């Protein structure tokens, strides 16, 4: 260091203290993995809903009761909310500044977690009701 300000911390200490929060790679990677999973899952969901168009509750309940459909629905819910939370976090990091940023990100994570659990419980309830 040749600058005027005297820095009492070692180079290593400064490097450790600054920069990445050590979760950047995981964030990036999980966003891609969930995206790749959502390609077939969301297409399957659109086709399934098209096939059941206008059906009433017993038809939908019977559809969810099939193990393959229940499993794919659970995967769709899990991947969707994980992907949404990661994506919305980046959007908030880009556009929201100041103290509200952390609050809004935590709010999004909480909402995604809760909504995901609620949807998961609904699928499990429909599945168990028929077995």
């Amino acid at each position, binding site marked *: 260091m040749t600058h005027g300000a005297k820095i009492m911390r070692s180079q290593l200490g400064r490097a450790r203290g600054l920069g990445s929060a050590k979760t950047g790679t995981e964030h990036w990677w999980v966003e*891609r993995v969930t*995206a*790749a999973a*959502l*390609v077939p899952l*969301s*297409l399957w969901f*659109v086709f399934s809903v*098209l096939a059941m*168009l*206008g059906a*009433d*509750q*017993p038809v*939908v*309940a019977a559809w*969810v009761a099939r193990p393959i459909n229940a499993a794919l*629905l659970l995967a769709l*819910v899990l991947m*969707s*909310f994980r992907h*949404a939370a990661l*994506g*919305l976090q980046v*959007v908030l990091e880009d556009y929201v*500044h100041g103290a509200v940023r952390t609050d809004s990100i935590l709010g999004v994570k909480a909402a995604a977690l809760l*909504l995901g659990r*609620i*949807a998961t*419980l*609904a*699928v499990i*309830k*429909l599945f168990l*009701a028929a077995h």
Partner: protein
Amino acid sequence: MNDVRDALHVAKASDGSTIRRPLSPHIGIYRWPVTMAASILNRITGVALSVGTLLLVWWLVAAASGPDAFALVQEFLHSPLGLLLLVGWTAALFYHLFAGLRHLAWDMGLGFAKPGLNPISWAVFGAAGVATLLVWGVAYARLGG
């Protein structure tokens, strides 16, 4: 001054007056290339789909609650507002899906060559439009037609 970085945006105009430099990417000045529109629309549809998950949750919870609750969702989804939301959700899903495939290709190092960027951006718009029309064509044929 809200942010220390604002100090970096003070500059002199050619007539010597002090101005505040615009922030990149100068959205109000640039002509919008299709790549820019494709990029921001991926983000917009992502946010829209996140909000749209509320419909999915409502649909699942209503199905789990029973015939009455489910009939209420069906009634809403078949109303003009419900149909508008569903068409918007379908278009957003297909756009985000095809734009996402483009991103996954980029992540593998494919499709970075400058000449291909504009056609691929248009192709994403086109594929999303065609897929949305196909789905709603089938839906119309099954329900209304």
